[in-house]
Every structure is written in structure tokens, then in C-alpha cells.
């Protein structure tokens, strides 16, 4: 296994240790791994001096591997051999102007010019205001009709374009085009003063504030050699679980609203607010902003706040249980949830779905279990049993995870320790290093990568939101499904637009 270097979550290595394979060996290694239960965590290009290099982080069961290679203007696409690389290769083509040859569906991901000034792979003129200068997969025939939804939607959701190819009410193919919220996060992160990194990472996706920031702070801690004490880890874990609960509760309500079953939709709406207020007790921000900082947390959990959290949890836990019962025992609701938007296990594994969407299809991956950070190594894991891959399974996983999070938080509140509040400083990162961090955000595996240059500056910062994997899952869930079920399927995945667009 010289071709792959085994690494650990959050532990930096010297960049010179990363294997630098010939292009063919690189491809072969990755495809072999992908076919043996390996999944892509990160795959991206970066500039190292005059060279452009590719780097891939893969996971296989409980192991993480890294490998790399140098690349010129083009390389043979891996997607035709294994679907897991599909989006990553498109992203590489867009960001660095490197063409993956024979890619089956080479299209831009976010519609922006590449960062190297190389010739554009897609032949776009980015001075044009409106993206859309690209082909959509088309189905021909007399009975076929095409429905285009978005990027501006009727509800208060983020922008994204959905192109349905339908025959009557049945969807043959759905193509999802995003990128309308591209802000250039990855391009900006290496340039800002290092003490701003957590603040920017908190805003990558508003609903995954803790998830992304945790990845960022762990990466900085790894590179700067900072130690985090036990109590700070407890607070971070509680914050991540609260974020998970708030989003799951809100989404169960939204699912209920989408099938026009009003009472739980309203109750859950209120309860989501209650859970968000718990984050406020923790750090003064309902979204958990400003809590996690490299080296620890910015707010210490005092006894008074512990008691507040315990009391409030004791109050809302039975309420959430009740409303869940109301939702999951209504047979008209179950009739809508069951067998809708199915992603079978085989397909989910081929696409490398993560998070609850993957677990609902029977993919047993949970980063809290496989690559535990913070307190997760000492906490029990939730194993979901309903794995039909339909909306009902995705909703049930969330219900279970809410209850699981409650018990985790209750356990953590009893662990008492001492910590000091830390504030953001400019840390010196170890030069010429590489670190990757993974956390199970509420949507699934969030991962950040930092590569540093010879002076300890950031050479490349790579962010991956779980949505990057799962959007394709949504597109597949819609195949042969009624078009009127799209909103329900969409909500059951509830993927991030801005987390994807970066």
C-alpha cells in the first residue's frame, strides 16, 4: 500500500509524505480503493509552485488514506470506472481548468472562471451575467415535456435550478444545477488573516455553523499544535448535537407541512425555536456562532447554564416525542412517506451518500463512529433499523437521531470539568503540512482540508459540505417518481445550496 498513506482525522502530516504517484498509478489506486468499499472524502487540485497537483483523501471503513499526483492540462476521468468521482472531477475541471478526459457528463458545477487563468474547459464567457450556457440532459419524444423550476422559488428557499424531463406526471430524469450562491469561499480563506478563518467558516452554510466551524478549528488546532481540554470538548459536542436536533426537528415539521398535515408542522416549528434557544444558552447565539474557537470554546458552560439546559430538555423532550408520535402514527402521512423517493442501497453506495440520507438507505457510515472527534469516542452510536431508502426512512432516521442527541446531551451535561474561555489569535501553522478534518454535521460528513506552504501560510483550503455528495442522490430519488412528489423528496434530503456553492 505504498500508493496510499494512512492518515488520521485532524492529525497533520508533512506534505512531502503525501505519495506523489504517476497519473496512471494514481487513477488505478483510487479506482481500486473505490471498488473495495472506499469512498471519496476529498479530491481536489492545488498549485504547488509551478506544478499543479491532484490530491485525494479516501475513507475505507475506519481508515483514512491520502494520495496525490502531478497533473498537466488533462487526465483520464475516473468517473467512467467509478461514479463516486463524478462531481469531484467536474469541480477540478472548473476550479483549475484541468480536463478529465472521457468524463460522461462534463459540466460546470458553479459557473465561475477557474483560478489559474487557464483556458476554460467548458468554453464559457463568464462576463455574461446569466449562467445557463450549457446543455441539459434531454429526453426526446412526443409525450415528453420539460419542466424548469427555479432558480427563484415560490418559498423562502435558496436558489437552485431543477430541470425535469417528464412523461405525463412521471419524472424520467431530474438535473440539478446549482452555483447561484457561489461566493468564492475557498479562494478567500487562504488570503484572510488567520483569526478570521472560524468566522468565515461559520457562514459557509448557516444551518451547519458548528459543523463547518468545528472542522476549521480542528484543522487549525492540528496545524498549530493546540490542545483542547476535556470540558471544551464537551461543550463543542453539545453544540453540534443541538444543531443536529434543531435542524431535524425543523425538517420533520417541514415534511409534515409538505403533505398538508398541519398540526405537527406548527408544533415542530415552535419546538425548533426552543432547541435553537438552547444554543443561545450555550453561547448567546441561536445558530451557535462565536462558540467554537481554535484551542477550545469562547464561552464556558457554568453550573447555572447546565441546569437551564437540563430543565429545558426535560420540558421539550416529551413534547417532541408526542409530536413525533402524532406525525408517525397518522396513516395518511405514512401513505405519503412510504415508498416515495426511493434510493436503494446499491445506488446509495455507488453515489457515496453520506449522513442521514445514506443511513436511511442502509449505508452504515457515521463519521461520529468511524472517525470520532471531540467526545464521540466515549459516546454510544445510533444504529438505525429502517433502511428502505424512502422518505419514511429518512424521516425516521431523523426522529431517532433527535432522541439519540437528547440522550447524548444529557450524558454530557453530567460530565463536569474546567476550562478557560479562549479567544481568537493569529496562530502559527506548521509549514509545508497537510491536515484533513471530518465531522458528522447534522446533514452528514463535513470535511475541511488545509495545505500550508513553506512559510506556514495557507496554500489551499478545501471545504466539502455533505450536500456535495447528496444532491446527486436527490436527483436519483426522483427517477420514475411523480413530479408532484419532488417537494417532499427534496425536503426529506434538505440539502444545502450555499454549502454546495461555497
Amino acid at each position, binding site marked *: 500500500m505504498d500508493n496510499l498513506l494512512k492518515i488520521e482525522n485532524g492529525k497533520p502530516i508533512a506534505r512531502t509524505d503525501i505519495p506523489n504517484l504517476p497519473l496512471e498509478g494514481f487513477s488505478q489506486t483510487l479506482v481500486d480503493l473505490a471498488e473495495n468499499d472506499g469512498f471519496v472524502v476529498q479530491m481536489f487540485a492545488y498549485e504547488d509552485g509551478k506544478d499543479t497537483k491532484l490530491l485525494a483523501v479516501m475513507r475505507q471503513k475506519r481508515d483514512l488514506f491520502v494520495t496525490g499526483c502531478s497533473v498537466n492540462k488533462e487526465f483520464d476521468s475516473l468517473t467512467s470506472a467509478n461514479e463516486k468521482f463524478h462531481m469531484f472531477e467536474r469541480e477540478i475541471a472548473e476550479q483549475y481548468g484541468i480536463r478529465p478526459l472521457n468524463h460522461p457528463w462534463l459540466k460546470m458545477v458553479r459557473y465561475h472562471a477557474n483560478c489559474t487563468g487557464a483556458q476554460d474547459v467548458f468554453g464559457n464567457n463568464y462576463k455574461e451575467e446569466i449562467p445557463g450556457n450549457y446543455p441539459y440532459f434531454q429526453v426526446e419524444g412526443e409525450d415528453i*415535456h*420539460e*419542466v*424548469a*423550476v427555479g432558480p427563484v422559488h*415560490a*418559498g423562502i428557499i435558496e436558489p437552485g435550478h431543477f430541470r425535469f424531463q417528464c412523461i405525463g*406526471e412521471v419524472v424520467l430524469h431530474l438535473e440539478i444545477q446549482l452555483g447561484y450562491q457561489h461566493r468564492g469561499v475557498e479562494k478567500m480563506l487562504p488570503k484572510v488573516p488567520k483569526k478570521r478563518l472560524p468566522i468565515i467558516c461559520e457562514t459557509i452554510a448557516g444551518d451547519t455553523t458548528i459543523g463547518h466551524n468545528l472542522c476549521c478549528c480542528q484543522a487549525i488546532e492540528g496545524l498549530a499544535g493546540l490542545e483542547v481540554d476535556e470540558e471544551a470538548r464537551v461543550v463543542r459536542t453539545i453544540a453540534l448535537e443541538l444543531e443536529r436536533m434543531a435542524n431535524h426537528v425543523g425538517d420533520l415539521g417541514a415534511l*409534515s407541512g*409538505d*403533505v*398538508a*398535515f*398541519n*398540526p405537527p*408542522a*406548527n*408544533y415542530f416549528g*415552535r419546538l425548533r425555536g426552543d432547541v435553537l434557544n438552547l444554543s443561545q444558552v450555550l453561547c448567546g447565539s441561536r445558530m451557535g456562532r462565536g462558540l467554537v474557537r481554535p484551542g477550545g470554546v469562547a464561552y464556558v458552560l457554568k453550573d447555572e447554564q447546565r441546569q437551564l439546559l437540563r430543565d429545558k430538555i426535560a420540558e421539550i423532550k416529551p413534547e417532541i416525542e408526542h409530536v413525533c408520535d402524532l406525525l408517525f402514527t*397518522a396513516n*395518511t*402521512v405514512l*401513505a*405519503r412517506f412510504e415508498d*416515495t423517493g426511493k434510493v436503494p442501497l446499491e445506488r446509495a453506495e455507488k453515489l457515496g451518500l453520506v449522513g442521514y440520507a445514506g443511513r436511511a438507505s442502509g449505508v452504515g457510515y457515521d463519521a461520529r463512529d468511524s472517525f470520532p472527534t471531540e467526545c464521540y469516542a466515549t459516546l454510544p452510536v445510533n444504529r438505525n433499523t429502517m433502511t428502505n431508502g424512502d422518505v419514511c426512512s429518512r424521516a425516521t432516521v431523523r426522529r431517532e437521531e433527535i432522541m439519540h442527541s437528547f440522550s447524548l446531551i444529557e450524558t454530557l451535561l453530567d460530565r463536569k470539568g474546567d476550562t478557560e474561555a479562549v479567544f481568537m489569535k493569529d496562530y502559527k501553522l506548521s509549514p509545508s503540512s497537510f491536515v484533513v478534518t471530518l465531522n458528522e454535521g447534522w446533514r452528514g460528513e463535513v470535511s475541511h482540508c488545509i495545505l500550508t506552504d513553506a512559510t506556514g501560510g495557507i496554500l489551499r483550503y478545501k471545504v466539502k459540505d455533505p450536500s456535495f455528495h447528496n444532491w446527486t442522490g436527490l436527483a436519483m430519488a426522483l427517477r420514475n417518481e*411523480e*413530479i*408532484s*412528489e*419532488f*417537494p*417532499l423528496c427534496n425536503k426529506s434530503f434538505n440539502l444545502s445550496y450555499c454549502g454546495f456553492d461555497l
Partner: protein
Amino acid sequence: MESIIAYGIALLAAPLFPGFILKVKAFFAGKKGPPLLIKYYTVLKLFRKGSVYSTSTSFVFRMGPTVSFVTAAMALLFVPIAGASPVLSFHGDVIVLFYLFGLGRFFTVIAALDTASPFEGMGAAREVYFATLAEATTFSILVIFFRLNGALSFGEFFAGTNPITVWGGAGALLLLVIVSLFMVLLTENSRVPVDDPATHLELTMIHEVMILDHSGPDLALIELGAFFKLLFYAAFITCIVQPLQFTSPWLHALLFFGIMGLIYVAVGITESITARLKMNLVPKFILTSFALVFFAAILTTRVVS
């Protein structure tokens, strides 16, 4: 005179009753809900606004709202509201009545198609499909009524020596009719479980999606037309279940509108305790109502002979 007053009251009260539905739904959701008069405010607000027309639409698009409003208002002319005899009544007016609604729907549909929006085309296809199925139920009900009563005029169904009422000899059979009529009411007025009037999701809409492009006074007319239509179906059921014939028209009207209010409350309860059906199950739902009526129709052969 009495008929015209009753007709006027019905038109004026039409926007009030949907407020009941909202209140009931809010109650089940643990909320206060909008004020009871919300629909009046909405209509007034819309009338004060201007209209926006897409440049790709033609005069057909502008005709839609007016026709659907007028036809719905005309249909109420044939209804014996609160026991008063209908403003208009002639032999065979039931056919005219239901095809007035058909005409209104036709214009709503072509106005929707005129926008060339894929959503509206989809909504129009669904609306027409489901309405066609619901028509089978409606006309079977008319057949039953004709067999029971011998009249072919809406007013005469509920008047004369042999009125159609659930308290009469054919009451048990009419219970089936009332249930299926309630199902038709839900279908025709885009209520849960067939359609969701509150949704913002275009892809799941049926009726709402067809009127997405209408704005201002046009939308107000469509809304009013929808209120009249809902009122018509509620009044239809009320006519069948009205238990007592008071000599005082005021008492009679009070009871009539009271029962009608209860029907709206029943709609609100239905919407609160059920989720929407999958789109491909809606035809089954409508055909269930047809099956009930068909069964009732078989029963009439015994009752009459």
C-alpha cells in the same frame, strides 16, 4: 324580493365562511389564526392593487377571471338559499348550473394555458382530469334526485310535496349522497386531501398553480368566484340536511347558515386530521364518491318501485 335578498346575503357572506376553515385549522395547530374576516381584507386589498400582465399572454388570459367570477355568481341564482325560492328556476336548470361551473373552469384553464408556463399546463391537466371524474358523481346525484323527486330544476328538488331531505323516506340513501357530495366539495374546491390551498410548492398544486400569473383585481375575482363555488356546494348539502322548516324566514335563514357554517367547520377538521393524498390516488378518491352514489342509485330502484 325575498329570493333576491337571500341571494345578496349569500354573495356577501361567501368570503366569511372560509375564515371558519382557517380558524378551525389554526385551533388544531395550536395557533390563534387570522381574523375571521381575513378573506374580506384580502379581497379588498387585491381590488386596490394594479394588475400585472405578462407580455406573452393574450386577451384570453384577461377573460379568465371575469368569466369564472360571473359563472360562479350566476350558479348561485338557481339555489334556494335559506328556504327562499331561487331567483331563477326553469325545467332543466341543473344542467345549466353545473355547466356554468364547467364554463368557468374552461376559461380558467385556457387562461392558464395562455401563459405557456409548464406549471400551469400541468395544473390545468390535473384540474381537468379530476373535474371530469367528479362530474360523474355530480350527475349521478342528479339522476338519483330525478328518480326520487321527478324534478329537473334545482329549486324544485327541495320544494313541493316530495322534497329531497335526509329526514324523509329516502334518508338512509341520501346519507351516501351527502358523503359523496362532501368528497366532491373537497375535490372541486381544491381542499385537502385532494389539493392543498395553503401550499407554496408549484409542483404539487392543482388549482392554485393555474392562477399563479393573475394579480390584483383579477385575482380578487378568482378568489370571489372560488368562495361562491364553495358556498354553492355547502348550500347544496345544507339543503339536503336542513331538518326543520320554520315559518319565520329569519329563523329559517339562521338555521340554514348555521348548518352551512358547520359544513365549513367539517372541511377545516378534515384538513387538520388528514394529509394530502398522493396525486395518483386522487382519482381513486373521487371514484370512491362515484361508487357511493352509484350504490345509492341502485337503491333508488327499490325505493321508487
